């Protein structure tokens, strides 16, 4: 009896959470001309059409670029910061922590608008630069938090020992600390990648001629038509994210870090 109610609760919750995704996959496989569920017959034509839409290719590349390099930049800034916040007794470390975590608290649409008004327009930053910085800032809190928690689990005496044995502090970090937190770093990378790739509000105001992130381009496409190709593209992207997470999970047990 108890088992039954457990599965009813979980079944309903999961239907609510996953159902729309399944509908999108099927709506994208429609043979008809408009978005509908159940679809009017099945065909892969919309899945194929996605690849022929030129602007999707450009915006996919831009989103990939932002997600990969923005996250790498955030890690380059975030790993040393997390290390310093964990291992050193810094004056004002709470302030630093708050500043670094701020991008997660400020609503994305405001960030996009602020960067457009005060960086792009007066300082001649390109939209791509502004997007890159916004995405880096957005991922930074995750990078610091996730790396911090894996540093917490790593005892500081290991590095001390390495230093006593003749390593410089930097060597100790590269040879001892980094290998031990690589799971956390990878988890931070994936979390950052997915966050950046799916980000909408930040990019809403940050678009220019020929420069649009993929989610914004999908919205722009919906201004032209609601045909099932956006559904097909959404499904393809979801599979891509899932594949990345799945591989990471297999390799490193990624979910431990989330």
């Amino acid at each position, binding site marked *: 009896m108890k088992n039954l109610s457990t599965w009813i609760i979980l079944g309903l919750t999961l239907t609510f959470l996953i159902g729309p995704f399944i509908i999108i996959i099927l709506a994208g496989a429609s043979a008809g*001309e*408009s*978005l*509908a569920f159940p679809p009017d017959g099945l065909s892969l034509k919309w899945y194929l059409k996605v690849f022929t839409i030129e602007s999707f290719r*450009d915006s996919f*590349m831009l989103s*990939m*670029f932002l997600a*990969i*390099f923005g996250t790498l930049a955030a890690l380059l800034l975030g790993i040393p910061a997390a290390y310093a916040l964990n291992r050193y007794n810094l004056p004002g470390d709470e302030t630093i922590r708050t500043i670094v975590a701020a991008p997660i608290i400020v609503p994305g649409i405001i960030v996009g608008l602020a960067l*457009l008004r005060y960086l792009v*327009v007066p300082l001649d930053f390109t939209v791509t630069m502004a997007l890159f910085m916004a995405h880096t800032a957005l991922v930074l809190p995750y990078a610091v938090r996730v790396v911090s928690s894996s540093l917490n689990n790593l005892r500081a005496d290991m590095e001390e020992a390495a230093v006593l044995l003749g390593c410089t502090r930097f060597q100790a970090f590269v040879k001892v600390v980094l290998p031990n937190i690589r799971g956390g770093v990878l988890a931070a990378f994936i979390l950052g990648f997915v966050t950046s790739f799916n980000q909408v509000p930040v990019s809403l105001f940050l678009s*220019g*001629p*020929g420069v649009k992130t993929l989610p914004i381009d999908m919205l*722009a496409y*919906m*201004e*032209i*038509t*609601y045909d099932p190709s956006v559904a097909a593209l959404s499904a393809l992207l979801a599979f891509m994210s899932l594949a990345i997470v799945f591989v990471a999970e297999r390799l490193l047990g990624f979910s431990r870090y989330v």
Partner: protein
Amino acid sequence: MKSTLSIAVIACAVAGTAMAEDKTLTISVYSFAQDAYKEALYDPFEELCGCDLVIETGNSVERMAKIEANADDPVIDMAVISSHDALSLSRKDLIAPLDLSQLSNHAKLYPAAQDPIGGNMAVGYTFYASSIVYRTDLVEIGSWADLLGEKVAGRVSLPNITGTQGPLTLMMLAKASGNDTGDYSSVISDIGKHADDIVTFYSRSSELAQLMNQEEVIAAPVGRFAWSRFKSSPLPFAWAEPAEGQAGGMNVMIMTKGNGNEELAYQFMNYWLSTEVQTRVAEALIDSPANTEVVVSQEVADNLTYGAELINSLNILDPAEIIDNREAWVEQWNTEVIK
């Protein structure tokens, strides 16, 4: 995978800068039918001028905001927008008067398109009628007043006041109620009273098409340029010919002020206004021609806003009236309709 990707991204970035050194024209256009435009207009022009077109798309409000934001150093060289948006840009001193000697095709345009907002600040390149699309199997539409009537209650959509179609609907609803004062506040109040009967105030015709295709909405005012979306549907849609007539509007071309790329922009504008391109665009059923020399078949004409007789019969709202009153309309709309 990652390394090939980053190489590809770098390659893109390099290609991007290389392109910028060639001749480039940045244009800002409505987002619909881009594939068809590419074939009928963009590709042939790129071949003709040996230059690259960079195309920014979006609805006119967003594109206007961007032209305004980049006023000091225009990113956009030329844009096509509604006549009242052009007037608004003109009043803000963001666009330059056109040098008609650069536009040899100008004389071929319908008189109404030649100088629609005065001072040669814009030229019209297309007219559109605006009427009501409805489901013939579910309802009969004979008047604009039917939009607020009992038979479509709960299944009607109106265009949002902030878009181009919104004011046209106000004008026609006023006409239907015998109000010819040009003061639409009573119309807005009327819409407010029926707000619960209106599914949504749409802002994109693509959204409306989806709603009508999934039977959410059975009647709504829409521009003729969107008619092809409905015509191709398996559902029985019709274009109403209401007793008060059809509303109409015009889209125009403008030149941003001080863009430094005027020569290429004129070349593009003139090409777009040519009989050759206007005919091709008309035959692709994208835009109705503003060029009087364009001749199309009856079948094509049925899909467009075509011919002097029809164009002269349209109820056209003065752009100045829209600009001068819009703020008050939006204010009243926000208080009484979507509060």
